[in-house]
């Protein structure tokens, strides 16, 4: 008898202890938030739908109470709402299953030139005590266009190959995505005559000092003078000297990579300095005296790969593009670009490009021999999420041609200043940072790499949450910005997200 009881008991235990707990419940709090903190209307628009988004679909019917206050605007004379708000509040209905609700703002008048006119709507209460307000509790509806005050931006860098660099303007909230391989050199439009390299495409250049005849040099040519350079060796794990006497030997160390040649002690670098200063370019200043402008060998960088990288990784640098020879002249108001294939001995291509005061630089394609539209006008962008960023420089004790990803620079040439806030001690968090906390003297105007790639830890796989950034645009608007992601939810790199707010 007891045997069978025991047997049954153990059998039951076998069954019980082999089941597992799969219970789940919906734990997301229900919150409502305005879709946008600011809504601009144009003179032509007579009504605007104001949207409230929910954190999840509503599990029951109810209402959200919204109050309003006008600035030079009266309910009934300047605006009405639907549902009706003549009582001082608007009851916005919520239907079970919906993920948002909305009401309509009807504009009855327009703003008088030179005056402000706006209505601020604020979430005031809920029919359900469990509901609460989300991140944006009020929305300002302006009768005139106004500068954006906040936003969440999903950048269009384009995934794990990071094919695009993205220019972003905080005051309009506009992002401009441009393929990295459209251009190789950038012609400076200021008073100095300078040429930048596209460091998002690993372009590098070396001067053949003393050579002014573009067609005289080919791969087999001797250099006018030997060059004493160094290169990083994986075997000895340190810099080893390398003596270069021919063009062929020099081109071996021109493309950007760990063993790119250089000699920082002698001030020799085949890339622009990372800071973006005019004095740091690989090209010497272009002289208006033609014979002072020498021939350069230009590595056109690396192709953008097309196969996506595995989850969590990047593939931003593909096959090497060719090395060509280039000579650039200037009369002070325009640049003349002469170029030819490395072994070309008969024909030179020549293009003259006038300076364009609206832009910092004019992008030029040596591949297609024409200017290309890359940068927005100089006051219409604040930061450039360039993705790839390359330069020859130090990494610890060794110097090498470095390739970064997820890189961000700001528009120093356009007068934008930026600094990093590192959260430590009593430094306010991003959420608590206000205009009063801005440290004007910390704004950096002479180094575009304030953000760089330090906002994320790619090896650790996380955003560095100990820092955020403060930016002052050329119009004097202050913004705080905080990165929230560098991959999409599926782990693919090259999908950055940041949030920003005007102070």
């Amino acid at each position, binding site marked *: 008898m*007891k045997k069978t009881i025991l047997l049954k008991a*153990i059998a039951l235990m076998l069954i019980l*202890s082999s089941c597992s707990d799969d219970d789940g419940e919906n734990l*997301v709090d229900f919150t409502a938030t305005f879709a946008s903190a600011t809504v601009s209307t144009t003179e032509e628009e007579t009504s605007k739908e104001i949207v409230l988004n929910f954190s999840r679909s509503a599990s029951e019917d109810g209402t959200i109470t919204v109050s309003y206050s006008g600035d030079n605007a009266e309910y009934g004379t300047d605006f009405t709402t639907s549902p009706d708000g003549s009582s001082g509040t608007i009851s916005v209905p919520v239907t079970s299953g919906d993920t948002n609700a909305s009401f309509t703002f009807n504009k009855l008048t327009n703003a008088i030139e030179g005056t402000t006119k706006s209505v601020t709507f604020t979430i005031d209460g809920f029919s359900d005590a469990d509901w609460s307000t989300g991140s944006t509790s009020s929305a300002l509806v302006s009768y005139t266009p106004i500068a954006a005050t906040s936003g969440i931006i999903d950048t269009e860098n384009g995934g794990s190959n990071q094919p695009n660099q993205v220019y972003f303007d905080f005051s309009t909230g506009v992002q401009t995505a441009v393929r990295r391989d459209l251009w190789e050199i950038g012609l400076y439009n200021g008073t100095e005559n300078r040429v930048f390299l596209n460091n998002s495409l690993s372009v590098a250049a070396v001067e053949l000092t003393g050579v002014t005849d573009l067609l005289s040099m080919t791969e087999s040519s001797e250099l006018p003078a030997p060059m004493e350079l160094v290169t990083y060796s994986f075997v000895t794990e340190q810099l080893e000297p390398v003596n270069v006497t021919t063009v062929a030997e020099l081109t071996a160390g021109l493309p950007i990579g760990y063993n790119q040649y250089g000699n920082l002690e002698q001030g020799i670098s085949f890339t622009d300095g990372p800071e973006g200063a005019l004095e740091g370019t690989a090209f010497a200043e272009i002289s208006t005296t033609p014979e002072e402008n020498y021939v350069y060998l230009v590595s056109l960088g690396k192709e953008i790969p097309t196969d996506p990288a595995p989850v969590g990784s990047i593939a931003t640098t593909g096959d090497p593009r060719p090395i060509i020879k280039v000579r650039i002249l200037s009369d002070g108001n325009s640049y003349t670009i002469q170029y030819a294939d490395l072994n070309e001995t008969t024909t030179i291509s020549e293009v003259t490009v006038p300076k364009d005061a609206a832009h910092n630089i004019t992008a030029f394609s040596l591949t297609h021999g024409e200017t290309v539209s890359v940068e927005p006008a100089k006051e219409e962008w604040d930061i450039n999420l360039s993705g790839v960023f390359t330069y020859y420089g130090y990494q610890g004790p060794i110097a090498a041609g470095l390739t970064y990803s997820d890189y961000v620079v700001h528009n120093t040439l356009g007068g934008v200043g930026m600094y990093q806030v590192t959260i430590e001690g009593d430094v306010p968090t991003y959420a608590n940072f206000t205009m009063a906390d801005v440290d004007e003297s910390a704004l950096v105007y002479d180094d575009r790499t304030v953000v760089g790639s330090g906002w994320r830890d790619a090896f650790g796989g*996380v955003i560095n949450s100990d820092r955020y950034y403060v930016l002052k645009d050329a119009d004097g608007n202050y913004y705080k910005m905080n990165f929230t992601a560098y991959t999409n*939810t599926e782990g693919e790199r090259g999908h950055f997200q940041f949030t920003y707010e005007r102070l």
Partner: protein
Amino acid sequence: MSLNKCKGFLITSLFICAIGHAQENNTMEKDSISMQNLNEVVVTGESQVMSLSKKLFAVGVLDQRDIAKVAGNNLADILNYNLNITVTPDPSTGRSTISMFGLDGQYVKVLIDGIPMASDNGMGNNIDITQINLEDVERIEIVEGSMGVLYGDNAVAGVINIVTKRGLDHAKWQLQLSVQEETVGDEYEWFDKGRHIQNAKLSHQLSERTSISIGGSRNDFAGFYNGYKGKNYVNIQDNAVVNDGLRGMEWNPKEQFTAFGNLNTGLGKHSIFYKFQYYDETVAVYNRNVNGRLNSDTGMVEPTALDENFDTQRVMNNLNISGPLKGQTIYNLSFSQQTQKRYYQQYVYNILQRGIESYTADNLSQSSEIWYSKGFVGNMIPKSDFFNLQLGYEFTHQTGFDAIATGEYSNDVVENTLENYDFFGVADFNVSDRFSIFPGVRYTNNSQFGNKLIWSLSSTYDITDTFKVKAIFGSAFRAPNFEELFFYFVDSNHNVQGNPNLNPEDGISIFLNLEHKFRLGESSMLKTAFKSYYFDIKDKIASVVTTDEEDRNLFTFDNVDYSKILGFSLENSLMMDRWQLSLGATYLGESTAIDESQVSNSDYLWSFNLQSSVGYTIPSINTTLSTQLKYNGRTQVVLNDSGGPVIGQTDDFTWMDASVRTNITKNFNITLGARNIFDIVRVNASDVPSGAHGSSVSSSRLFGNGRSYFLKLLYNLNFN
């Protein structure tokens, strides 16, 4: 949860019931345990044709009693206490591999009834020993030394053979049911924490020569949190995710299921044994990092994590036929077909919603199929007392691919086929009654690296009937693994490629074994064994930097290192009435040269291990108390650093287990015990390899999950 309460009640009533039962029956069982103990030592078990040859080698045996006293469910549970074996777990993958004499799992061959087991991308070596279930195991045999002639490639450090239990001794039917509940460190809950094991086995003796057995085992390891906060944890502050690295677990959860069956029968004078095994394992890997993207509609943070799931399935069919060929000449034939598949899933887990948003990968990442056969003819010259001969063959055909070992960057995950044709022979020269010499040779033809000749010479000299000397001089090789041959990761900053032209690593070992048995009285015996061993491994595969055709730096593998291992051990075991005692110590030195071409010869780096166990049986209450201890001395290795070779080390630590096992009735017993009494989790180490970019340097090595307690209830019913 009402189920929990119900289960608590059940267990309570089970105890009351069991204790009541015990009082009635505790006189029924006599001293069967102690008698069994004595038999184990004296009988060498030569009758089992598939067991390792005790004539040629010193074979260590772990039997069911050893398994029972630690309530071992898989091989990793019991090998920790072997003097020359270290079990190293990898908490991120859930794998545990062994090292023997300081040589890792790639140098140790694991067999089931003499047939090599399919491993992730090989045959027999680098086995995850947590995957070997012990429910239908009769005993485990451990042979130390290079056993290449009899067991082929990778049997460099030694061989571990798992012998399946077959047949029933006393009854026609036997039903065995057991449940085992364990804490993992101090973590335990009915479902979501701890370790939960259920076993069931039914055996039937159909006739005198025919028996069948079927069963299953489930081992649900819920993971080891150790301060981590599980898959539903996220730290949100001011609508932003703060990645504090606390999501997930220290040791990922793993659920294993094994189903097995065997048939043991005979036809005339021929014995036939068939074994089937199905194994399924699921390992969940929780990402420590949380993606804190904001929902651009609501502005609210929507934390997600990219989690992974590995599901490994293995099917094994083993067949063995043996019998007399002619007169006293015997034959033994084995056939095996094994498949292993590993499925990989990667998915986006929404932490607040607690559900899967989407799958980013769901595919078969590894697959292999193995056809294997081994056969030999033994005792070929039965009439001669002086000379005898054994001749055999071994054949392996393996096809498969491994997308992970070839590198996630590999564009061409190609299917590879590997074939081995081996022939071997061992001769006996019985010079005198007490002195024998056994020279052996094996010829291997491998489709990857061509021909290879292995040899061995062993001899035994019986000074007296109880004092025996064995000397074994053998060679073996380790074949390059899949990753070393085929890994591929090339982009602008990386150029890492396997080397398909690698040669096997050659190993030679010399073992000297002196064993003396002392009979101390009617039921007392002392066995003392002294061993000295030497390993010389040449052409060790190591990663090297070289340049490819385009003069770019290439990280690859080559046969450049070598190592020498010298060791001494002394093992004593004493059986005395109700006591079983053992005490052993080993002193092992390893000398490694990293990259022979460079002058970086190191001196021997020595380590000391100690092992002891005590067992005491109280027949009046059918109870056995046992405890075992192993001191793992500090180990040192030579590491290649940018400034030249440096010595890294792992500190010493001690394992200790204790258990009480009591037969409450003839059919029902309980084991209650504690594992890892010294509460070992991490051990300081300066020899942990860093990540490719030196970003994840760890200064400790994880060995255990802290002091754990277990309770096993076993019900064993015999009936006719």
